[in-house]
């Protein structure tokens, strides 16, 4: 092992678990893929902070923990778990769904409990144009054969490799050509664990030609739970010609959750992928890797990020946008409010390949430090090999404008409320990009809520 890798007991136990997972997998192609991914993971090991990509996100505390690995891909939901999940979802619905205008009017609901799809708790679209199943059930589906494992980059991605080798659950959603879903699908992922647990969900979203859908992902766990839950998730996303996919990931977990998520998308001509990754106080460790491949001409990609961090939380967003063909447009807007002793990282890469003339690629990262000990690392990286492109990036790190706060106070508005107004205003241009009004108001209320007392 080199010094860029960490040694951990978890590494050892995973090796052993892998054999079990592999034996259980009856699908030859997937099995071969797992083996190859495991090879890659073995070679990479867990990254240390000497690895540039992980410089500010120390995973040592995460991999020092031992987790129960859910190796059983045929796991069932127990009666107890179902009851507990029901209660948590009820509270979660109270929290978020009324704002989606009454649950079965504003959004479809797709519930998984510890990765296991619960039909009972879900409310799914009655539309022949959509296929929803577990990833395990999808192996014979043409969409699976076409895209599974072909989107995510394993090279230099230890966690994605580990997920690819050992995933046991996840969702497969395919929207057929010309299907436009009338309401968003809200995916609620319930995580319950009595002991430390590692979950490695693997999703595949396929949006075929001229199809359009909105997906909202949230996850919930039991707030009283002390057990450490590590989620190492990968989602592969394919957008075919003229497909539109609005993908919302609202991250507000409990403290015991540690999350490493990789979303990787491939896009075809005239498609539009818009990703909204909004992270709120809660989860102690969050690493989001978002990679987009603009594989054809005239593609639009939007990456909107908001992170409001508190306590001793770490939130790290890494983005990669690959412009490979002409006339593509990408737009990244990330805004952070960093409170208490929390730490945020933004690392945004834009690659413009030689063929990708007339590319428009923009990137903006603005951060407000809201505590004496709050910290942010922001790093834009642009590599441009075409000569006729428009690319820009801007990074700011600052504090709230004192003169503006004084202005608000001079009109009778108290200090705390003045700051809240300012923070909302700061987040406004990202929040306004949310296309679902109820979700937008939920996000805005959450900002107010989480700002209280700061």
């Amino acid at each position: 092992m080199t010094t860029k890798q960490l040694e951990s007991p978890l590494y050892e136990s995973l090796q052993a678990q892998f054999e079990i997972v592999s034996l259980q997998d009856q699908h030859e192609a997937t099995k071969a893929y797992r083996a190859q991914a495991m090879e890659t993971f073995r070679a990479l090991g867990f990254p240390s902070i000497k690895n540039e990509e992980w410089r500010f996100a120390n995973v040592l505390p995460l991999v020092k923990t031992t987790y129960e690995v859910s190796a059983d891909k045929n796991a069932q939901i127990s009666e107890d778990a179902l009851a507990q999940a029901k209660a948590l979802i009820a509270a979660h619905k109270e929290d978020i769904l009324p704002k989606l205008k009454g649950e079965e009017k504003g959004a479809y609901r797709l519930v998984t409990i510890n990765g296991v799809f619960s039909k009972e708790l879900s409310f799914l679209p009655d539309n022949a144009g959509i296929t929803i199943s577990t990833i395990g059930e999808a192996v014979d589906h043409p969409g699976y054969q076409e895209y599974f494992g072909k989107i995510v980059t394993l090279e230099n991605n230890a966690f994605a490799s580990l997920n690819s080798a050992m995933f046991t659950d996840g969702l497969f959603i395919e929207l057929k050509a010309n299907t436009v879903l009338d309401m968003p699908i809200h995916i609620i992922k319930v995580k319950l664990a009595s002991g430390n647990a590692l979950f490695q969900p693997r999703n595949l979203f396929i949006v075929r030609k001229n199809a359009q859908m909105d997906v909202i992902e949230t996850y919930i766990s039991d707030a009283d739970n002390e057990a450490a839950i590590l989620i190492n998730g990968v989602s592969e996303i394919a957008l075919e010609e003229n497909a539109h996919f609005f993908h919302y990931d609202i991250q507000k977990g409990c403290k015991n959750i540690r999350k490493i998520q990789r979303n990787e998308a491939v896009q075809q001509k005239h498609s539009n992928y818009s990703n909204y990754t909004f992270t709120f106080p809660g989860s102690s460790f969050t690493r989001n890797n978002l990679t987009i491949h603009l594989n054809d001409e005239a593609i639009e990609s939007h990456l909107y990020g908001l992170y409001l961090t508190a306590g001793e939380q770490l939130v790290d967003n890494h983005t990669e946008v690959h412009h490979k063909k002409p006339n593509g447009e990408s737009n990244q807007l990330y805004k952070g409010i960093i409170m208490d002793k929390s730490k945020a990282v933004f690392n945004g890469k834009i690659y413009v390949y030689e063929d990708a003339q007339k590319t428009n690629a923009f990137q903006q990262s603005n951060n407000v430090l809201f505590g004496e000990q709050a910290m942010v690392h922001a790093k834009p990286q642009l590599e441009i090999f075409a000569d006729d492109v428009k690319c820009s990036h801007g990074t700011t790190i600052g504090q709230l404008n004192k003169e503006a706060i004084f202005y608000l106070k001079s009109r009778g508005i108290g200090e705390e409320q003045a700051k809240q107004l300012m923070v909302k205003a700061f987040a406004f241009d990202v929040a306004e990009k949310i296309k679902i009004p109820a979700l937008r108001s939920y996000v805005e209320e959450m900002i107010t809520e989480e700002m209280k007392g700061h």
Partner: protein
Amino acid sequence: MLSIKNLHARVEDKEILKGLNLEVKAGEVHAIMGPNGAGKSSLASVLAGRENYEVTEGSVTLDGKDILEMAPEERAREGVFLAFQYPIEIPGVSNINFLKTALNEIRTHRGLDPMTAKEFLQKSKEKQALVEFDAKLVNRSLNEGFSGGEKKRNEIFQLAMLEPKLAILDETDSGLDIDALRIVSRGVNKLRSENNAFILITHYQRLLDYIVPDYVHVLSDGKIVKTGGKELALELEEKGYDWLK
């Protein structure tokens, strides 16, 4: 209403106000004129409670209450209003939400119920008409992209909405063309009443043609060196300030 006694204030080590006295009664309009650097805007800042000003001596009371001990928002709730020389742009904060929040904070402080949306809109419409403020601007982000004149007019609109006891207009006339000046002045004249008072800080006599003051004070080197009626402004326009030193 407002009583300033022997006020001394400084910014860092620089003493700016050096024993200023001023009495303002309800129903009165006072103009404060003076050369650059005399401390006019500093007086406005000290009264509104701007952070970097330190009061070293003296007292300021509003209807008998010591305001120097109060935070800026408390002063505002007690009825002090400062129209800024340079109003701040705050993108993302809507003008109307901001005003509603401010108004309800002030009402709560006075023991009144918060206004309903309907009442608020009604009031907002009345005051817009009164001070001739464009409805389109009301719904925009606070001062964002407003012209200099629009910003100043927004200050007067806020003044009309919040109905303070004491309004301090810090060079509200500077940068205004003659039409904007007329509109701003008309607004202020309509808002004058027996129950409120105005302090106009200005460089130019011009403003006082439109808003006629009861008293004109000359501030020089941190003190009021001369007080007179509205005719004093004309004399200053003619002679400058040097003869007063």
